[in-house]
């Protein structure tokens, strides 16, 4: 399977990160053997910790944030999360699965059923018909995931009660793309269905879903609802933090040569 850009950078980051720890220890051993200057010892520890911390938090964490939450590459992120599946990222993986619709990557039955409902409502061509009564069952069964807020709204949309749905959606706003993409899609869908045309507010939601949610199933639903969908080119962040590793490496080599 071809590695994604995120996976490659994650692997490089990990290798460089652990390599920098090893070279830091080697550098320390060199200092211990030859120099015995207490200030330089402290310095090696402090500068090493600072640069590694900067690489991790201002480098990799920021890169991942940009990659996923700014440029919306959810499929790549999902692949990375599946490969490094653990309890810590289980919740994030659920959120990403909701967006991409790859139900094979989750064990949560409620989430799988929610996706099936959405498919049946928004994508009549491919989605299997699901009885609307079971949506209320799902609402009761669903765990405390943030997406459980979507179920009552989905139920309202299914019942064609668009005014109430829009009012509820208005109050669900968030700056996180995980919840904002489905919310804005629901808003656009309910608004178009209610008015029979695309209002300014709905257009703003459509633009958001097509931009941020380019790799999600919501964009796929929209492309079937709306004509003239413009393809946006994917943008990727630059992993600038490698410069910090390079500087740290140079510094360690200089220390070893002293």
């Amino acid at each position, binding site marked *: 399977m071809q590695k994604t850009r995120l996976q490659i950078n994650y692997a490089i980051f990990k290798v460089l990160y652990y390599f920098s720890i090893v070279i830091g220890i080697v550098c320390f051993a060199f200092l211990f053997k030859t120099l015995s200057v207490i200030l330089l010892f402290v310095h090696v520890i402090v500068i090493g910790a600072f640069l590694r911390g900067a690489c991790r938090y201002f480098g990799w964490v920021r890169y991942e944030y940009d990659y996923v939450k700014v440029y919306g590459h959810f499929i790549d992120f999902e692949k990375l999360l599946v490969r490094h599946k653990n309890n810590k990222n289980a919740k994030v993986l659920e959120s990403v699965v909701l967006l991409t619709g790859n139900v094979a990557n989750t064990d949560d039955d409620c989430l799988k059923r929610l996706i099936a409902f959405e498919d049946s409502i928004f994508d009549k061509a491919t989605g299997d018909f699901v009885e609307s009564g079971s949506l209320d069952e799902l609402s009761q069964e669903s765990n405390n995931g943030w997406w459980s807020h979507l179920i009552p709204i989905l139920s309202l949309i299914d019942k064609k009660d668009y005014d109430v749905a829009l009012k509820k959606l208005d109050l669900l706003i968030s700056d996180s793309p995980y919840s904002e993409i489905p919310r804005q899609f629901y808003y656009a869908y309910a608004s178009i269905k209610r008015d029979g045309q695309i209002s300014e507010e709905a257009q*703003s939601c459509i633009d958001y879903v097509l931009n941020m949610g380019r790799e999600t199933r919501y964009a796929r639903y929209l492309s079937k609802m709306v004509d003239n969908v413009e393809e946006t080119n994917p943008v990727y962040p630059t992993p600038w933090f490698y410069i910090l590793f390079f500087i740290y490496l140079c510094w360690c080599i200089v220390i070893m040569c002293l």
Partner: protein
Amino acid sequence: MRNKIALTYKLRNMIMLASVISEMICAIAFRYNVKLFLVGTAINVLCFWCAYKALQYYITKQLVHHINLRDYVEFLVSKGSLVKAENATLFNVLLWLGDDDCISNYLKTTGLTIEQRIGLELYRLDKSIFASDKQLDYDDAISRIRELLELYLKSDSENKDVANRCSSYLVFYEKYLDEDYSGAISAISDISNQGLLVQWKLFHEAKAYEKMGQLDAAEEKYDAIVKTGGDIRFLKWLNKSSENNHAKISVAMIALCLIVICGAVISILFTNKKYDTVEEALKWQYGKEVSENNKAIDNDNSNKNVTAYVNGAEYLYCYSERYGEKIRIKKAYLNEINGPSIETGLDATSRITGVDFAFYDSIPNDVNRIFISNTDKLDDTFFDTSKLKLLDTIDINGKNYYLFKLN
């Protein structure tokens, strides 16, 4: 680069990176001189911190005092990826700027927090009332903002000041739309007179005065807005354009840049600087003040020089290399640093021996193993005394020291 805010930001990043690199060079250059090491570190850390703070101060100044909103928006848009705080500021600035195209572009890629949503709704209401924009259902808009405000107050990120201010705005709009203009003015009288809120207050008071027929009072307030200038949306709505308003580069940032560069250059020069005398070299390289009078050994062997100084119980050995007329110390040992600790109960001779071993460890075998002691009765526990030869006895500051050669 036309946008000076972007230039200042890049300069800030370069200063922060340069101060880290400069700190590394400084640590290597002054590794034996504690005082210079600490001074260099303090300067670099200070530059790093000042650069971080200076940008915050500069941006606040550009936004609040000079109201260079357009430049700031251009800078953030060109930056691409933004952190949460930057996104929040950008959206706020876009609302003050009143640029609908930029706002709709922002909404294409970024979701809004409740606070931002309230701001957007208030902006649309404001524009609809005062800029003769498309008509809104005012009652519906106000009730929607009230619902959002209630939600905001229940959220974790609620800020009482923001909520109170938004409530005051709503009361103002309601009273203004009900044609109770004096009530509208009193509703916003408590809004703080800080930053851009002053402009907001002036504009809305002026509009209310205008409706009340107090044209002089209104004109006075309009003049105050025009006089402050900047890119604020109220000027656009009044059809008044401000003078060409572009940010200037931060002078503090240039000064910091020069300090860091100078610091780095000085550190680089120090890493290989040669000195006229051993005493001068010791002073700068090791921060040790020694006098020519305390010199006990000066063993010049071609271009490798061994010098020792004594002062009471302290013995300083140094090994320097000669480059023509100049000298650079390669290693220096103070008995307390490298010798066995005094607490171990060993006498002075043993400590000298310890220093001696450490010292000669890096000296080639062909150099005469000469060392100094403050006693001629050396302890045979540490080395074979039969191989020792007393070369000379010297008197330094009234104390006798003995020069030995180890065969």
